[in-house]
């Protein structure tokens, strides 16, 4: 549905997006994850036809955004929740979008209700909190009854209850056959919301795949009687090893590979577990050092 193909965007000498490719399928929620300045917003702006790519292309259903006749009916975008006129009411903001997309104006009230702003519709956006602006932005994206949703940092400013609400809304949208792409710089914000992750750092895709696969691929943690011997055994088996402060060893391998290597070297293991909680750390590593060669290998979806 969404297809980003070899997208590159330069601003002067700065390479903001460097050969980024990924796809989002109907029925899925994709998290576009990376630290600030990783190129997420630039990619989304190119996708929304607001910025021309230096190279490559971005399409929705095979069509470039600018070629869409009535884009608001196909793809709803919220590129910056703060970019609303503070002197306009929430209702009026949605009404302008309804007129532009040609949907009945009755959708304005429905969308205000859907995002929980029915009592704030007549207030000016300047009086809204950031969380309320996020809700208004999502409502604005939904007004045209689109098939695709693209949200830039939608969880920003939402409280935990708001994040849970958004999770439900996006899940419903995807379950109805919609395609969702949302960006975030905080994994914890979107971890429970997304099915797939595209992780970017320094303008490049550093890891991509189903959330479950990425969790599984984040390796195992081992504790042994003899830490030095264990590290030597794993290194001898050709596995990537990293000692951790608590005396355990993190290994980029499956539990079976580690078990066999330990057995071969006669090392006694006290603990061997899949490191499912390590995704945040993985995300941090990936994005802090995006240029490591192995990071280009995408995890099979």
């Amino acid at each position: 549905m969404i297809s980003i193909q070899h997208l590159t965007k330069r601003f002067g000498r700065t390479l903001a997006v460097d050969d980024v490719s990924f796809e989002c399928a109907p029925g899925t929620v994709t998290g576009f994850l990376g630290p600030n300045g990783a190129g997420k917003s630039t990619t989304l702006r190119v996708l929304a036809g607001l910025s021309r790519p230096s190279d490559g292309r971005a399409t929705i259903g095979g069509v470039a955004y600018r070629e869409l006749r009535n884009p608001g009916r196909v793809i709803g975008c919220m590129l910056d929740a703060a970019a609303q006129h503070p002197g306009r009411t929430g209702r009026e903001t949605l009404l302008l979008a309804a007129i532009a997309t040609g949907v009945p104006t009755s959708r304005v009230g429905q969308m205000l209700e859907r995002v929980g702003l029915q009592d704030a519709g007549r207030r000016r956006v300047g009086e809204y909190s950031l969380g309320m602006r996020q809700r208004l932005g999502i409502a604005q994206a939904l007004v045209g009854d689109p098939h695709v949703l693209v949200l830039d940092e939608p969880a920003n400013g939402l409280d935990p209850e708001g994040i849970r609400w958004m999770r439900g809304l996006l899940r419903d949208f995807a379950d109805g056959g919609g395609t969702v792409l949302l960006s975030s710089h905080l994994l914890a914000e979107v971890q429970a919301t997304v099915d797939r992750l595209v992780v970017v750092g320094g303008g490049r895709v550093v890891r991509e795949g189903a959330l479950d696969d990425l969790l599984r691929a984040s390796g195992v943690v081992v504790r042994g009687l003899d830490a030095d011997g264990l590290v030597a055994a794993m290194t001898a088996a050709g596995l990537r090893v990293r000692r951790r402060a608590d005396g355990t060893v993190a290994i980029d391998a499956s539990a079976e590979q580690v078990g066999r290597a330990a057995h071969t070297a006669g090392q006694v293991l006290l603990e061997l577990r899949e490191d499912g909680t390590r995704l945040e750390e993985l995300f941090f590593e990936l994005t802090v050092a995006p240029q490591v060669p192995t990071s280009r290998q995408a995890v099979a979806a």
Partner: protein
Amino acid sequence: MTGGTETLEHLDVDPALRPLARAMALRGPSWWTVLRIELRKTVDTRASRWLLLAVLIVAAGSMAYEVTQARSMVQSDPGWVTLPRYLDTVFDGVMLLLPVVGVLAMTTEWSQRTALSTFTLVPRRGRVLSAKVAAALLVVLGTSLVCALVGLGGTTLAAQVADVPLALEGGSDAVTAAVVMTSLMALMGVGLGALAGSTSVGVVAYFVLPLGFSLAAPRVLGDASVWLDGLWAFERVAEGTTTSWPHAGTALAVWIALPVVLGVGRCLRRELP
């Protein structure tokens, strides 16, 4: 208006994608729909409403003052109370403020960053920008006509207060001249606003540049300044008293055509904030 879907049944589309294909075939907003949106935007925020309200307050205030002065003015000049004179008074203030809608039309979306959603919903920027210019001119026209009615009311009232006959001759010419002048000023505002790129810089440029030039140019350029004096040219054109179209045309080109073309060209390509 949007609406009609085209029949897609003949297309070989994956059934799961058929709703999407249908949505893709929907017509986008016509230019008139975009104009309707842009007209709404000229009155749907507090700032824009206040500007128009200020214009009407200035018009009504100037008339109220003139009505109180009518009796004493008539004593020294029995023919004082005429519609053209009162319209001039009304539009002195109106002409100063009202054309700012031209500046705002080209800058608000960038200064408030709403350009992001506007151009996402209507990616054809030329369509949006031309509708903005048309909306600004319509607002100028509509507000000018309301101000003209205020002038007519003021004249009628003043004639009654001063007990002189109502003198309406030349009124329509005065209204036409005022509307043309205000529209030219608004178009200049469009150009300067689009070039400036932000509301604050645009408004300052609109107030300072043409007036500053009109004051400074004769001293620097001497007689040659008439080629470039925008305000002078607008006035001659509006009053229909242009004696030299080459002079006025050059000034109009420099203060309207050039900034509008360069400014709108800039807005068409500008990266969004």
